[in-house]
């Protein structure tokens, strides 16, 4: 018995000493778990990204791909339509995004206010546009904004105003696009800001009130600094979203009139699927990716530093 016991104990000791033995199994498991996600990422993201770069160095001539080096990128620099698309996208970025984020901040503060009754209903109301199908809302807007048969002009007509060429005048088309985007995304940004707002400690407001701060002062010195990380996030997300914008101009104006609402996304699409120029379209995609990267870095530098 004893011998057996000692024997088993003796055996138990070295086995305790080789405790790392099951470790390899423990190491494999996490990789196994992330493998499906990694494989999917590699197949559906990494591979297309790489392949797209390879395509961007080629040109299809007579059905065969010919390596042309940086030709497509060079062509990009001398293409007036690419610059028009870039300018249009930049205008939306500079005008629409700040207006939308200011609106979203105002909304978030309002929705956070305890003075407001039925807050949940309002939150839902402002968030609902976000879940509307992009194409569906594009079509609804194009019907609403039709110059001759649209509801908006019918209403302003009742007020005695001249019909506005919402989608047919280069300037108004840009404004219409901005309106549609603002309607669609303001609620989404407001919800992100609202979530952050709720983590700002109430004591800070109390302290500010004790110090005699009014509503504006406490907004400037308590709310805004509190919102900074969320503002950074919404700014970066909106920038990326705006640079890639496609659905709205595609459905609303088709990039027109006379390319007034042509965005980089629409131009990329036209080159790939209308002109079958996949090499050039891929070059546009890479130019866009580089732009987004640069702008993202700049925004993190300026907004992120002090947070």
């Amino acid at each position, binding site marked *: 018995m004893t011998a057996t016991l000692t024997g088993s104990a003796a055996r138990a000791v070295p086995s305790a000493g080789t405790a790392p033995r099951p470790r390899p199994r423990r190491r494999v498991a996490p990789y196994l778990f992330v493998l499906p996600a990694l494989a999917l990422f590699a197949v559906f993201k990494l591979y297309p990204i790489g392949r797209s770069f390879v395509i961007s160095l080629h040109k299809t001539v*007579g*059905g065969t791909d010919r390596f042309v080096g940086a030709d497509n990128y060079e062509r990009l620099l001398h293409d007036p339509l690419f610059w028009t698309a870039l300018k249009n996208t930049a205008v939306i970025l500079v005008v629409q995004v700040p207006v939308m984020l200011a609106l979203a901040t105002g909304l978030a503060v309002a929705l956070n206010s305890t003075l407001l009754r039925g807050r949940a209903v309002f939150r839902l109301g402002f968030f609902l546009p976000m879940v509307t199908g992009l194409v569906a809302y594009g079509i609804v807007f194009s019907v609403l904004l039709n110059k001759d*048969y649209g509801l908006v002009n019918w209403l302003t007509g009742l007020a005695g105003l001249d019909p506005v060429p919402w*989608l047919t*005048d280069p300037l108004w088309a840009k404004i219409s696009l901005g309106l549609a985007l603002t309607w669609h995304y303001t609620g989404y940004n407001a919800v992100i800001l609202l979530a952050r707002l709720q983590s700002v400690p109430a004591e800070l407001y109390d302290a500010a009130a004790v110090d005699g701060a009014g509503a504006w002062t406490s907004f400037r010195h308590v709310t805004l600094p509190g919102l900074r990380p969320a503002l950074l996030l919404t700014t970066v997300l909106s920038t990326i979203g705006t640079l890639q914008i496609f659905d709205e101009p595609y459905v609303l104006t088709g990039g*027109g009139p*006379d390319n007034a609402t042509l965005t980089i996304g629409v131009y990329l699409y036209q080159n790939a699927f209308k002109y*079958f120029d996949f090499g050039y379209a891929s070059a546009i995609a890479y130019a866009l990716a580089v732009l987004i990267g640069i702008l993202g870095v700049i925004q993190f530098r300026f907004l992120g530093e002090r947070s």
Partner: protein
Amino acid sequence: MELERRRVLRMGGAIAAGAGLTGLTACSGTGGTGATGQGGSAGEQDKGRISVWSWQGPAAEMKALVPEFNKKYPGIEVTVEDIGNPAIWDKITTGLAAGGQGLADVLHIGVDYLPGYVEKFPGGLADLGPLGAGAHRNAFAPGMWQTVSPDGKRVNALPWEANSAGFYYRADLFEKAGVDAGALQTWEETIEAGKAIKAKTGAHLLGIDKPASQADAANFFQMLLQLQGAFYFSLSGDITLDSPEAVKALTLIKTMNDAGLVSDLAGGWNTLMSSLKQGTAAVLPMPTWFGGIIQEQVPEEAGKWKVRLPPAVRRGGSTAATVNSTHLAVAGSSKHQAAAWSFVEFVLTRPASQVQIYKGKGIAPALMAAYDDAVFHEPSPFFSGQKKGEVFLEALKAPSSAFNYTADYARALKLVTDAQSKVLLGGADPAKVLKEAADQLARQTGRKVSR
């Protein structure tokens, strides 16, 4: 008996064509992207499961033909899918770019896309020659064979619709204005008539999608060009966007617009339909197939409408032009090319099929034998008792210029619609914007501008 003989003849032709062309295909040595076998080797002619991609009206009409098709080919199971237009173009493009993955066996393709698909995706569409298409070479309207078989050897598709330029007009409005629409010889005269109509009835002469919200905004411009036998490219593929004919066409449009005779159809199809229902314009310069749409949309206006061929651009010039066409092709990746071809042949080369489709949706066949049917020669109560079918048959029989759409048609069209928008919305000079467009197209495509 007669039918039997025809079938034997056709088979003979098919075999001869097949023997001749398989050799050629083998020699041509073009790199196929998605071709799985050429000619009759891919599947049996009377067996298999095939799918067909088309859109709205034509899809419905092909579906209706399937039971009859199955009486002849019980072994072929056909699924017709309505992909919708313009969605079908993206879907075909994606499929072709993916080497034919996921494509249907039979594809319905417009003349504006066909050359692009053929040039950019060699082998993406099957060569119908070896399957027997050559036997039908002379069955279609003049110019159609050149469209589907530019080199006269490879057959990329079979013609379906051949749409001639038409001039649908509200006879009651013309009458009120005291203008005899039938007597208008040129578009200049028509502009004068338009002024009278605007003054007396308030209606515009016609409508154009001025900001080019849809890709087809330049249809009218293109029609004016084609009436002059001109196009965006010469037959050899040079750019002719700023030819004197093009400048003339755009100048006519500018004159109309400056005189306040052009209503804005921004918004595309829906706006066009609203405008039709509201009677905004006196004239719809639309091709053959549009007659069926008018009849469907405003049935209560029966007897108020008439149709004629469009006035000429220059006095004594042509009033006939085939402005567009659609075709059925077989995917190069199809595993049942022979069965798919059987369906294509059944739909497009039998007068009975085409007559039925014309009756259903007013789709104008390119198949000349179809016009022997009485339905094309009946007076139409909607069009004031006119024999509408005969009007267009006259145009179809007229000598028609062939147009080279090239693989760069989509780019050219975009530049043309932009130029037109500049003229219509900003009052730009037609010659100047067309020259800019031609130069830009040359930079984009590397083609020469013919001046």
